[in-house]
């Protein structure tokens, strides 16, 4: 992958509750914005293939089930389009497949677009659906899966993070404080308000030990990226961002097969493979956008990616290491917590943020760029069995 | 004859004060009753009672040749519940599945059927289970008085802790309470004074007398009299008519656990066996829907040796309790449901 793929344009709509916008509206707006973001211009017909991220397929509101839906939305029936669905990492994997389309040499310029319409159903219904199935649907028996929904699977991890690593609910709440603060500087974030530790801990319990404000919101959104051959990038922009590594990693979906509850091997595997592909190490990163679907998850992700050792993340958080002005900023966009989690759009939205940060166009939330390398990460899917990691760089 | 090889019971931990269900309807009731939790039913109770009975009996599940269940509370009119128990108890596919229903005398009939199967040689060991959680509706007598429990008995010819030395049945066409297919609850007594004299008392007395006559024993030969307990008063009426001292009666459960239907006499039997001594004789007489079965049992020495494998004695279940209120009860019985939208 390294040396073969460049991002020449990114675009997204602000994430939020878009009751007045349909799935098609949001996807179209993200696509148009993305086209317009290509500095030196691009004609739509230059895009020769597309990958379409859509998670729900209609199970929690409007959805799309085939690539042909995107063909209709963008008004281009002439190109091959594949729908990608891979749990919460749908966006990351949609992007990965688009990159593979270019790295393979078959296509010069391709589109990756992710869109999710979650708010056609009440928040509680989509929270439960997004958090777990009813058993038979996932090929498991209800007696094993009953009682789950929302953050309950991550709560298993939170309980052990507290028991084995000494993390506290205050530590988790501080992740929300950091990310909400970051979100106030991001015009695309779902939530633009600050929270305090007290407010988080006093919010209603959703699944002990996680409170309402430990959970990311249900969000509508769309985001897109245009990717092309690295050696053609300068034709489209003076500031291409290169893809160094892109990987998907797995872990067992069944909780009774997992090795422990303080580490998610899907992330460990996805990150390890992406770093190998990129020929860089976690220490080389300037910042990371990670999958904080729940506050405790962010701390686990940081460790699993290798940014710090297992058990260290809470201490470093408390020392300000992950703040936007800290040593290794995490989620300068506000993370899923404040920026929102329109499932298939999330990963590509994070790619947008990494691109803007590396181009130093992030305005009030700009992090310090030294090595010019940033990382994007998602984890999720049934039983948190899938993770996607993309590593981007300012230079080839 | 065959006898009891092992037994086990289960009583749910939840209790409702009978008055809490009666007073809102200007009815009167006293005492309390055991009620199932929201995830319990006659099958889950029977599973736990049976598991304990099999362990107490000291037989392997694969040796159980027939499983008999007596209940009036099955969730199904067509679908056996014995196979569900056979799965959780890990019985063999060759075990005969026999579901008795239709009356709170059904467990007693199930015991009769099991004895027949063992006497005939068709089955070496059988398990007989009485399990009940009768259907109720707000404002009915049953809603205040019907309790939930399960009692299981492994029956066979080897390792007996109590011989069953005789059985006698007495039945007439008599209707006191009923549940038609169209009904989701058991009716009140049609006329309690009529029903108690010509229903309960007449049949319990006739069956008990018939048994004593048949096997040539007298009331003085019994140490315990275990009768069906729909309420606290009826057993005493039958005892008086039989000339049996009320001291012989098993402790009343009707105002502690409620009217336990087809496992009523059998829960009381378990309570008696928990403390009975070898050589003591027990009279057990059930009653339901105009049918009464009377059994005579003699406790054996083995009862002491098997005590260490006993599950949970009745006394302990009486101590393990947690009260719920009437609204929670209505939600559990689904009389009160949340509107979907």
């Amino acid at each position, binding site marked *: 992958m390294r040396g073969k793929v460049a991002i020449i344009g990114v675009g997204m709509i602000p994430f939020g509750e878009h009751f007045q916008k349909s799935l098609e509206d949001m996807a179209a707006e993200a696509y148009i914005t993305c086209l317009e973001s290509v500095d030196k211009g691009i004609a739509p017909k230059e895009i020769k293939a597309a990958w379409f991220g859509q998670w729900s397929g209609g199970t929690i509101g409007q959805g799309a089930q085939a690539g042909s839906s995107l063909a209709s939305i963008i008004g281009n029936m002439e190109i091959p389009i594949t729908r990608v669905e891979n749990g919460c990492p749908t966006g990351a994997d949609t992007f990965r497949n688009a990159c593979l389309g270019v790295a393979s040499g078959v296509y010069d310029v391709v589109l990756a677009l992710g869109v999710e319409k979650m708010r056609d159903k009440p928040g509680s219904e989509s929270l439960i659906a997004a958090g777990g199935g009813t058993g038979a649907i996932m090929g498991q028996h*209800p007696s094993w899966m009953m009682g789950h929904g929302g953050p309950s699977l991550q709560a298993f991890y939170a309980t052990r993070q507290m028991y084995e690593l000494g993390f506290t609910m205050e530590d988790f709440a501080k992740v929300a404080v950091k990310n909400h603060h970051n979100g106030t500087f991001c015009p695309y974030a779902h939530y633009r308000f600050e929270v305090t530790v007290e407010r988080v801990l006093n919010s209603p319990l959703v699944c002990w030990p996680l409170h309402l404000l430990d959970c990311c919101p249900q969000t509508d959104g769309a985001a897109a990226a245009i990717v092309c051959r690295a050696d053609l990038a300068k034709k489209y922009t003076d500031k291409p961002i290169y893809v160094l590594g892109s990987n998907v990693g797995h872990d067992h979906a069944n909780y009774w097969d997992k090795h422990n509850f303080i580490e998610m091997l899907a992330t460990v595997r996805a990150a390890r493979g992406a770093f190998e592909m990129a020929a860089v190490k976690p220490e080389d990163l300037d910042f990371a956008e990670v999958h904080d679907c729940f506050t405790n998850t962010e701390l686990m992700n940081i460790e699993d990616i290798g940014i710090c050792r297992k058990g260290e993340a809470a201490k470093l958080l408390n020392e300000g290491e992950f703040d936007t002005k800290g040593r290794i900023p995490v989620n300068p966009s506000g993370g899923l917590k404040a920026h929102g989690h329109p499932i298939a759009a999330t990963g590509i939205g994070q790619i947008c943020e990494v691109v803007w940060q590396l181009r130093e166009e992030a305005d009030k939330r700009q992090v310090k760029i030294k090595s010019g390398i940033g990382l994007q990460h998602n984890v999720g899917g049934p039983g948190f069995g899938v993770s996607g990691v993309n590593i981007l760089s300012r230079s080839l | 004859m065959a006898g009891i090889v092992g037994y086990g019971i289960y009583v749910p931990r939840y209790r409702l004060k009978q008055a809490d269900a009666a007073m809102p309807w200007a009815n009167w009731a006293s005492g309390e009753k055991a009620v199932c939790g929201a995830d319990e039913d006659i099958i889950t109770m029977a599973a736990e009672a049976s598991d304990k009975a099999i362990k107490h009996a000291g037989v392997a599940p694969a040796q159980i040749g027939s499983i008999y269940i007596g209940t009036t509370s099955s969730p199904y009119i067509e679908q056996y519940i014995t196979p569900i128990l056979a799965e959780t108890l890990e019985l063999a596919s060759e075990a005969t599945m026999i579901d008795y229903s239709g009356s709170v005398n059904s467990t007693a009939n199930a015991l009769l059927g099991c004895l027949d199967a063992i006497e005939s040689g068709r089955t070496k060991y059988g398990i007989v289970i009485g399990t009940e959680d009768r259907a109720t509706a707000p404002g009915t007598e049953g809603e205040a008085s019907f309790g939930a429990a399960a009692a299981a008995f492994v029956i066979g010819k080897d390792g007996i802790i109590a011989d069953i030395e005789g059985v006698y049945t007495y039945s007439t066409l008599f209707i006191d309470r009923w549940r038609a297919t169209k009904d989701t609850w058991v009716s009140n007594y049609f006329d309690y004074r009529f029903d108690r004299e010509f229903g309960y008392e007449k049949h319990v007395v006739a069956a008990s007398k018939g048994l004593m006559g048949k096997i040539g024993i007298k009331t003085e030969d019994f140490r315990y009299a275990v009768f069906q307990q729909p309420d606290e008063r009826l057993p005493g009426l039958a005892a008086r008519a039989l000339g049996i001292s009320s001291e012989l009666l098993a402790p009343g459960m009707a105002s502690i656990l409620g009217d336990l239907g087809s496992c009523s006499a059998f829960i009381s039997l378990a309570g008696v066996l928990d403390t009975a001594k070898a050589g003591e004789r027990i009279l057990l007489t059930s009653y339901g829907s105009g049918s009464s079965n009377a059994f005579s049992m003699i406790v054996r020495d083995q009862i002491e040796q098997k005590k260490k494998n006993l599950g949970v004695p009745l006394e302990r279940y009486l101590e393990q309790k947690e009260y719920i209120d009437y609204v929670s009860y209505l939600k559990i019985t689904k009389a009160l449901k949340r509107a*979907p939208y």
Partner: protein
Amino acid sequence: MSSPAPASPLFWRFNPEVYRLIGVRCKDCGHITYPRRKICPICGSLNLEEHKLSRRGTVQTYAINWVLPPGLEPPVPVVIVDLEGGGKYQGIITEVTNPEDVKIGDKVEMVLRKVVTDRGLNIYGYKFRLVEEG
């Protein structure tokens, strides 16, 4: 979303797992899992044998869920239990008045309970109950 359909082949296939706790054990790496399968999910071995899980264990991790799909009353303690003799089991703890009573390391035993009802048919399965010490 489709409903459970207790009469379906899916549920019938699960009977040995759900009622008799028959899973598989990998003879090469020792991993114990369920439902029964042909390939070990840990090491990819084809060398699997049937294995009966114990009905007793200790709580490895838990969470208390307050936001639930219709049919369950909150709060619901969900758990992962380390089973005696190996393997882990995912389930619910029933009969807990105070969710705060649940702790990592608690001893639990399986009890048969009603899990869900569909088309008038009940689906049963094992839930856990805290074992009282002594």
